[in-house]
């Protein structure tokens, strides 16, 4: 089966106030060494993983902020990837962009290198909310990033949004969605803000400087975005994701369907042939290891059958179409009803899951309670 490739670019101009992912301040020398190390890792993995015969159906450059790198560096990464892997002609190749770090030249360069999808971190329309999140861009930069992407030839544009920001009103959320719809994206992700420990936002909330968004309001925002986008021609295909028909993010579908992928770069995760592994987090350590022709892998683990089963279920339930129960039975030789009889009975009596067309799905009530449902299968 074809695989996906994830490439982690661990640099940002400034880390956002809510972010607890692996990212470091941008440094030109470090970035150059990183790009070089990444190229080595891609060819190294090829030899060691036995992945040379696997076709690649999607590539995703995520971060961090991939677009802090130069157009040449981004192009080089994609070229290195093609050099080592057999990338399908119709592969989805996404680059995450932050407004303010892209220009027509850079976008043209990555488009030419084969990227065919951009995912732009918009988050909100209002300047005050962007500032609260610690974003460095403004709305004008969002608009120009989208315009320049189109001009560079990207016909598949995804916009990322956040709701439930401290102080955000329903009206501000509606305005954001109106503005975003006017940009005619092919795909929208709308994530409910989660305030993670050890982030500036968490400290502001703990100190009482910011008051977290009311839970009922967050729910209202969630129902609103579902109604608004589906009413405007989008398919709600995953808990937090919406797409024009046929524009579902193919790369993310790999994760949700528990298929295989390789990750490159610091802190990148991979899942291949029942084995999960991840790289060291520190970018310097990553670079040093590859410069010494060593592997960047820090952890690896063979998943047990139980683990694979529970992950297949909780990832699959993220999709609105749910989990294909025939495929499940085929993979694991047992039906889901045999394995999770008690859990399924409990969850369906609570009205959180349902079975339709031989698929196990979250109900409307279950969507915002997805974690409670998932935990039952752990």
């Amino acid at each position, binding site marked *: 089966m074809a695989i996906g490739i*994830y490439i*982690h670019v661990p640099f940002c101009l400034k880390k956002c106030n809510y972010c607890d*992912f692996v990212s470091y301040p941008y440094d030109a020398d470090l970035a150059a060494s990183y790009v070089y190390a990444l190229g080595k890792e891609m060819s190294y993995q090829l030899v060691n993983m036995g992945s040379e015969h696997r076709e690649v159906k999607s590539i*995703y450059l*995520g971060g961090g902020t991939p677009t802090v790198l130069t157009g040449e560096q981004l192009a080089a990464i994609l070229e290195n990837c093609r050099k080592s892997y057999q990338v399908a002609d119709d592969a989805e190749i996404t680059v995450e962009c932050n407004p303010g770090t892209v220009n027509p030249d850079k976008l043209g360069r990555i488009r030419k290198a084969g990227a065919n999808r951009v995912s732009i971190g918009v988050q909100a329309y209002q300047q005050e909310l962007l500032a609260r999140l610690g974003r460095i861009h403004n709305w004008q930069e969002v608009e120009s990033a989208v315009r320049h992407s189109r001009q560079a030839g990207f016909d598949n544009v995804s916009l990322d949004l956040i709701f439930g920001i401290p102080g955000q009103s329903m009206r501000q959320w509606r305005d954001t969605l109106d503005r975003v719809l006017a940009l005619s994206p092919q795909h929208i*992700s709308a*994530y*409910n803000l*989660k305030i*993670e420990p050890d982030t500036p936002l968490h400290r502001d909330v703990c100190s009482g400087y910011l008051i977290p968004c009311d*839970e*009922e309001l*967050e*729910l209202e925002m*969630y129902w609103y975005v579902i109604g608004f986008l589906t009413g405007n021609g989008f398919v709600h295909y995953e*808990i*937090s994701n919406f797409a024009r028909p046929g524009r579902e993010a193919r790369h*993310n579908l*790999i*994760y949700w369907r528990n298929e295989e*992928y390789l*990750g490159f770069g610091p*802190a*990148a*995760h*991979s*899942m291949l042939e029942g084995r*999960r592994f*991840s790289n060291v987090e520190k970018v310097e350590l990553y670079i040093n290891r590859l410069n010494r022709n060593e592997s960047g892998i820090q952890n690896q*683990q063979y998943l047990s059958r139980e*683990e694979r089963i*529970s*992950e297949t279920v*909780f*990832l699959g339930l*993220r999709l609105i179409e749910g989990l294909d129960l025939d495929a499940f039975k085929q993979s694991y030789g047992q039906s889901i009803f045999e394995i999770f009889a008690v859990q399924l009975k409990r969850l369906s009596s*609570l009205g*959180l899951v349902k079975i339709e067309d031989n698929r196990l799905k979250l109900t409307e009530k279950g*969507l*915002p*309670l*997805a*974690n*409670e449902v*998932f*935990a039952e299968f*752990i």
Partner: protein
Amino acid sequence: MVEVGRHQNTRNFCIIAHIDHGKSTLADRLLEFTGALSEREMADQVLDQMDLERERGITIKAQAVRLNYKADNGETYTLNLIDTPGHVDFTYEVSRSLAACDGAILIVDAAQGIEAQTLANVYLALEHNLEIIPVINKIDLPSAEPDRVKKEIEDIIGLDASDAVLASAKEGLGIKEILEQIVEKIPPPKGDESKPLKALVFDSHYDPYKGVIAYIRIMDGTVKPGMEIKMMSTGKIFEVNEVGIFRPFMTSVDELGVGDVGFIAASIKNVRDVRVGDTVTNAKKPADKPLPGYRQVTPMVFCGLFPIDGADYDNLRDALEKLQLNDGSLMFEPETSIALGFGFRLGFLGLLHMEIIQERLEREYGLSLITTAPSVVFRIYKTDGEVIEIDNPTNMPPVQNINKMEEPFVKATAMVPNQYVGAVMDLAQEKRGVFLNMEYLTETRVTLTYEMPLIEIIYDFFDLLKSRSKGYASLDYEFTGYRESDLVKVDIMVSGEIVDALSSIVHSDKAYQKGRQLADKLKDIIPRHMFEIPIQATIGNKIIARETVKAMRKNVLAKCYGGDISRKRKLLEKQKEGKKRMKQVGNVEIPQEAFMAVLKIE
């Protein structure tokens, strides 16, 4: 044969100190200095043997060790160090350890000065006429103020501190001087070898091969293997298999004589046959009367203990039986709760004792437990003339069948610096205390005596006392008797069902307030479920408070970045782990802490 007069070169002493003032470190240094242990054998802090003791920095069980010291006067002395527990729950045990000594080292932190806890034990030591050697420890600290601390010792305790040793147990300073003072100042044990055996039991432990080992101090006579001994409180007779001393590991000797501190093994099966404070005598030639001060230890505080997983019931019983082998004051019997299923009702000396047992069960035996709020024994006079005693609120008969109720009272003595007297008096009043006496010990130190219901003490009195006196007040209490009280039972209903394990018996003046506070507290403790959960407090059929745990509406995973599934998995596992710590009552998951919530309300 015991050498006559040998005990002239014996010194029996203990160390009195506040937590963290360096008792264990000093004990280690004394062992090291006298060569009782080679450095290689020297695990840090030898005397505190239980992990739990080390963590909490308190001594729960007494320990003993024998040191040999060649003094400057050229003579070699045998020094027996007896460690003492240091908490109000164990006052009786402390008093028995002190009774086995002739002197005490008083350690005071050079920076912090005298603290409350130390005082109660100092007074206890003075009551036993022990010679006290003040040691000012931690003089290596930059904040050390030995002169101020000396003055405190003189003012507050009334001891002459001019010869106080300035020491640093950590740096090994002053150790020799302490040993010299022990030899010079502490009197040798008195006693008569020719009299019938009289030995004081100050502790015991269970050995799987030898049975219960009695820790004893010989007052008169001698004891050796083959001898028949009698426990004077029970009259039980055993044949001695082995006698020995602690070096610090148990070492056999031929015979123990006057002044010796050591152990007796006599194939004793039941720890209750070796009672702390009891007198061991020669069965064939018994002493005419036992040593003074023996008291039968009775549990004062009771609670229910239930395994979260019902399948652990047998494991819990096994664990309790094992703990009981070493702890004669621990009592238990089976209990059944409608809400919590099968478990045990346990009796303890006090709240700390209860916490320690619970923690040991969880830690050493890996059990997940629900503890219900502690209770005392209430006495109920029923309308039909029957008098019953209950230690579990669940067993309280309906109000209409009750003529009157009584609860246990104690005489509580608090020692307080004078600036906190007002705060402590307010507290005692809030806790239904009846003022008995106030006495100035020094210009700055006051003893307050109240008669109080025991239940108030075991709830949160000690914690509140400490917080309102910034840690400076100390507390001691003794049972005085039963008094009539206007008591009612407050029940808690969760989702319309009474949860028996949440019931409590409280004074009627406070019932409404307690019911409201408890419902409010439970609202915050019980996590949100997929449905709304009403919580009601009731007295009889009357609902006195109602709160609601709102239904959970939302719990979504954030973005799944770069395929990091393991991180999501960990989050879900953590969420699930949290649920394992809860007890399912009906369709509601109730966390452990809910059952202790009644303790946390004022």
